[in-house]
């Protein structure tokens, strides 16, 4: 019996994702195009080796790992919604926290894809699986990362699917199952980003990374970028579906972003002071990033753009008038997402490797293939989120639920986007 119920649910989801409005089709088709191009780029990379990227011995990690680092932060930020919702039982967020968890899932998928395309021998990925291969746990931080990222992915997927499936069956999810998992997801979110930070932090060879401040900075900037993305997504969802998201919820998230950005800027200031004032040889990477070093200054315009964006966004989020005005709020969100993407992506990975351990400066900038492949992976993540939303939104609005026989799915309205005119209720039977 349970199998038939699940099968009914599954078939319902297939119908949902396969049918939608014109805009939906256009969106999904665009994503599939980018995914296709990314896939071809990956085939090209597999054939020729990583030499088609701009990474070389001197800068051995680049654009892929930059994106990976940024996205781990986004994934961790789903927790920012969970904490007020489930720890403080703040109702406005509680209803939509599951949307945040789905974002975490999509971000995790992207992270795993970025790591897969970055390693030199993806055919040997099984070497990482304990018992089959050797996982150097607990000595290697990368082994830790493999463990915690997968745990976090499964955790969020389980919670989201469990809640949604229960809502589909028109019953309240069992709190004694969800509450421990949700509470566990808070340290899990902190863990994924702390482990990723420690991955960089533990390397004595790279003084730019070997700073205790790295883990707190990661968390602070993660709690800026993820929720900013969520705010934009909330507005999109609110506009195009029947899901209600109160302004209160959005403004609260924005306020929390303001505090995170303050901490982020403060920690950055602390770093800058320490390096410039102490003026040791370890100033070189920060100097390369902010001023340029020996005539090499490719990253300087980017990082200053990021700084300006971050500080502006901080004020926009801090001042209640700009925070609660949707124009300035959205500007702030875009600024923060771009700012943190630069600061925590290339602005973190590249200065760690430049100058290299023997003082050489190799200026890295991603090749076309790297960019195409990266866009393909982002498209994949958006595609995953779209599909998840396509199922979750109807469940949350009560338009996708189990029929009276207990197994067939009922879809009230296959239109993903709510039309201006009132829609008559139509039911589709499987």
């Amino acid at each position, binding site marked *: 019996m349970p199998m038939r119920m699940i099968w009914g649910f599954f078939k319902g989801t297939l119908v949902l994702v396969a049918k939608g409005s014109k805009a939906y089709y256009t969106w999904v088709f665009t994503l599939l195009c980018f995914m296709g191009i990314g896939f071809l780029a990956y085939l090209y990379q597999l054939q020729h080796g990583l030499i088609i990227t701009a990474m*070389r011995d001197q*800068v051995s990690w680049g654009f892929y790992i930059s994106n990976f680092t940024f996205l781990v932060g986004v994934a961790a930020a789903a927790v920012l919604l969970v904490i007020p919702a489930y720890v403080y039982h703040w109702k406005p967020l509680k209803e939509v926290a599951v949307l945040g968890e789905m974002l975490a899932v999509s971000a995790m998928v992207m992270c795993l894809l970025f790591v897969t395309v970055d390693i030199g021998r993806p055919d040997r990925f099984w070497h990482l699986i304990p018992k089959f291969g050797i996982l150097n746990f607990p000595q290697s931080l990368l082994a830790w990362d493999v463990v915690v990222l997968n745990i976090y992915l499964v955790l969020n997927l389980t919670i989201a699917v469990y809640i949604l499936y229960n809502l589909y069956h028109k019953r309240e999810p069992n709190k004694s199952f969800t509450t421990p998992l949700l509470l566990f997801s808070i340290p899990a979110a902190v863990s994924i980003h702390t482990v990723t930070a420690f991955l960089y932090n533990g390397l004595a060879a790279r003084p730019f990374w070997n700073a205790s401040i790295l883990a707190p900075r990661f968390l602070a900037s993660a709690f800026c970028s993820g929720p900013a993305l969520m705010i934009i997504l909330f507005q999109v969802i609110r506009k195009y579906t029947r899901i209600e998201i109160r302004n209160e919820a959005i403004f609260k998230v924005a306020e929390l972003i303001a505090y995170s950005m303050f901490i982020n800027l403060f920690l950055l200031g602390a770093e800058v002071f320490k390096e410039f004032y102490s003026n040791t040889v370890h100033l070189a990477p920060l100097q390369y990033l902010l001023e340029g070093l020996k005539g090499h200054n490719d990253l300087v315009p980017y990082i200053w753009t990021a700084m300006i964006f971050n500080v502006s966004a901080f004020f926009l989020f801090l001042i209640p008038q700009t925070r609660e005005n949707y124009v300035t709020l959205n500007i702030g969100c875009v600024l923060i997402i771009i700012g943190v993407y630069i600061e925590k992506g290339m602005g973190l990975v590249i200065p760690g490797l430049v100058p290299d351990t023997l003082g050489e400066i*190799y200026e890295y900038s991603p090749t076309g293939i790297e960019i195409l492949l990266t866009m393909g992976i982002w498209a994949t993540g958006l595609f995953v989120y779209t599909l998840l939303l396509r199922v979750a939104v109807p469940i949350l609005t009560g338009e996708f639920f189990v029929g009276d026989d207990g197994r067939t799915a009922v879809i009230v309205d296959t239109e993903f986007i709510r039309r201006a005119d009132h829609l008559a209720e139509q039911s589709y039977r499987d």
Partner: protein
Amino acid sequence: MGRDCLRHWFVPGVATLVLCLVAGVATAAPPRAGGDAAKPNGASTPEKQFAVPTPPFTPGIFPCSECHKEMKPNPKRRELKDEHTNIVLNHGQWRWCLDCHDTYDRDRLHLVSGERIRFEESYRLCGQCHGDKYRDWKVGVHGKRTGMWNGEKQYLLCVNCHNPHDPRFKPLAPMPPPVRPGDIR
């Protein structure tokens, strides 16, 4: 009381001092590596033989006595004008040929003590002034290292690398620099 004190402490004190001195001398570590003390009369002492290759003579120049047995040795310090004009001596100050080459047996070199040595032992001659290099060379720390690191090591003569008449190494052309990372395709 004073005399008793003296008798009580003086003799044992001196005895202890003497004992200490003897013990110190007896337990002093022997000189490091080599341990070749030349006897005062300048006679050659048995020294560890180093497996060196044949001295790098200019072809045809050895044995020198082929020409020199006919000629009367002229020990006056001068610049040579008739022969060996291609040799420019650029080795320290106030040097000339017979400071190293033996005056009466041109198939030999001579040490400061007057002892004649064969060209195969020329390192002993160099080692007189360049003692630190000689010490290092005997242990294998100075000079080009070939052979077996845990077996028979090959030693080279000083002159295999250093021209004895103009010993300072000349700069040489370096091998190509590595390809820059941006140029690796």
